């Protein structure tokens, strides 16, 4: 169900913990599985549990507790806009409204072409450069409507640089 590369990555994670503590590699294994397959469907969660010799319920508990796991398909580019207080005080609502209008979707929705998902998240720990969002591996900070437009154009142009 997972590629050789992902299995190797999970084995490496396992090596960081005492042999009898394979459960410690669970959060990482779920992340690696999601990175490869886009989201965590039930069979994939069970598969990861089996891989680590854990009862599936333990993997489901974790997959449903933490916010970074996607249990449903999301767009190729997932905008996670911070709406906590320092970002709020610097106009995060405006940022969300702008993205929503530009993309034609509401919070929690994905564009029909499967390219964009829009989410509001709680504090991402970049409060001094508010307002900000996370997109894939990167933080985009000190956002303005103009910088958002430039970012969307870049992504629509199929840039592979931005994930």
């Amino acid at each position, binding site marked *: 169900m997972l590629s050789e590369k992902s299995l190797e990555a999970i084995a490496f994670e396992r090596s*960081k913990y*005492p042999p009898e*503590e*394979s*459960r*410690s*590699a*669970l*959060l*990482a294994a*779920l*992340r690696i599985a999601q990175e490869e397959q886009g989201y965590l469907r039930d069979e994939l969660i069970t598969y990861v549990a089996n891989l680590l010799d*854990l009862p599936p319920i*333990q993997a489901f*508990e*974790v997959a449903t*507790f*933490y*916010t*970074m*796991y996607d249990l449903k398909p999301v767009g190729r580019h997932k905008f*996670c806009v911070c*709406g*906590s*207080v*320092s970002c*709020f*005080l*610097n*106009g995060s*609502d*405006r940022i969300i409204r702008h993205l929503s209008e530009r993309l034609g979707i509401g919070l929690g929705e994905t564009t029909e072409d499967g390219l964009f998902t829009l989410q509001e998240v*709680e*504090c*991402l*720990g*970049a*409060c*001094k*450069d*508010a307002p900000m969002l*996370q997109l894939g*591996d*990167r*933080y985009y900070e000190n956002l303005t409507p103009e910088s958002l437009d430039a970012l969307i154009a870049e992504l629509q142009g199929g840039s592979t640089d931005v994930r």
Partner: protein
Amino acid sequence: MYVNGVTLKNRGVPDSHRLSVYAGTGGYEALRKVLQEPMAPEQIIAEMKKSALRGRGGAGFPTGLKWSFMPKGVSGTKYLLCNADEGEPGTCKDRDIMRYEPHRLIEGMIIGAYAMGATAGYIFIRGEFIEPINIVEDALAEAYAAGYLGKKILGTDFSFDLYVYRGAGAYICGEETALMEALEGKKGQPRFKPPFPASYGLYGRPTTINNVETFASVPDIITKGGEWFLNLGKPNNGGTKIFSVTGQVQKPGNYEVPMGLPFRDLLEMAGGLRPGRQLKAVIPGGTSTAMIAGEVMMDVTMDYDSISKAGSALGAGSVIVMDDSVCMVRTVERIARFYMHESCGQCTPCREGMGWLWRVMHRLENGQGREDDLQLLLDVGSRIEGRTICALADGGVAPVVSSIKLFREEYEYHIEHKRCMISMGEH
């Protein structure tokens, strides 16, 4: 004044995250001193106590004292953990230490491990911090290659392995025992204390956990002495502290300054308020700490004891500045949403109470407030406080109760007029 001189010393230097740059500015000299002089573990802990360094993650517990709790002479593994699960709204300092000074953190941890006899450690970094994670991973590889980590460090009998652990999105994992649960591959739900981590921590083994900034303060304390560090600040409030100044200031940022600096000076460093604005209120230590009225705050100094005397807490040093353009009800509603979202669901008063507080705040903000809503908020708050396993719920109550106390007329205006007294407009 000693500014940006300890944990963020090399910020701004090109490639400050690389070992070559760190070593070129005295990096790993403290570790050499400890291992080669050598310094006995008791001596290190005594120096830490002398420094009056207090935990920089928010609780402010004296670091040297915490280190002395680690049991001696036990067989089996002892663990040293770093809490890099930075997520309290307004807090963004550990991210910068990891981005610009990862080796200072690593060196601090190695010294701590030696002082406490720990042989394995994990740096628990929140999962969203992918850039810092990659930088710290690279720095660990450099430290291993240079012989600062692994077996027989610098040719001594001391061995220590250190790894990065990535979180997966949950504020509660910043609570130390929830962090340990997450590290064990479970939901991050806090444990009952006692037993405390020093006797029953990760995998039930003796464990010490400190914040990023705390560890990053250690190398300079060792090379320059505990007394030097203490004297940077004031008695019982040793050293410098990073303040993340955010919100409505002109130059938000991380400012590392001596403990005891007057707030008005810190505000000035952060560029002051926007033109024509008045200071309304300040949250001095992250959203879990009580709000302080602007005019009171202008006379407070930035240290644990002074802020505590003003009725709040220094917390993680996350200073959120609000000017007179702010609707307090709307702002606190937003803060309450955070605690509802982040409650781990374990304790009933928190699981139910955080949502309850938010729902009442939400209807107040949306013109549907009822006459007895303020009393309801205060009552619910008083029934939550002190009745949960961890401090999250108390932290969720603090902004609600403190803002009602300071800005009651604004709340009453919402109930009476069904709209904001101060319109933030298209915010």
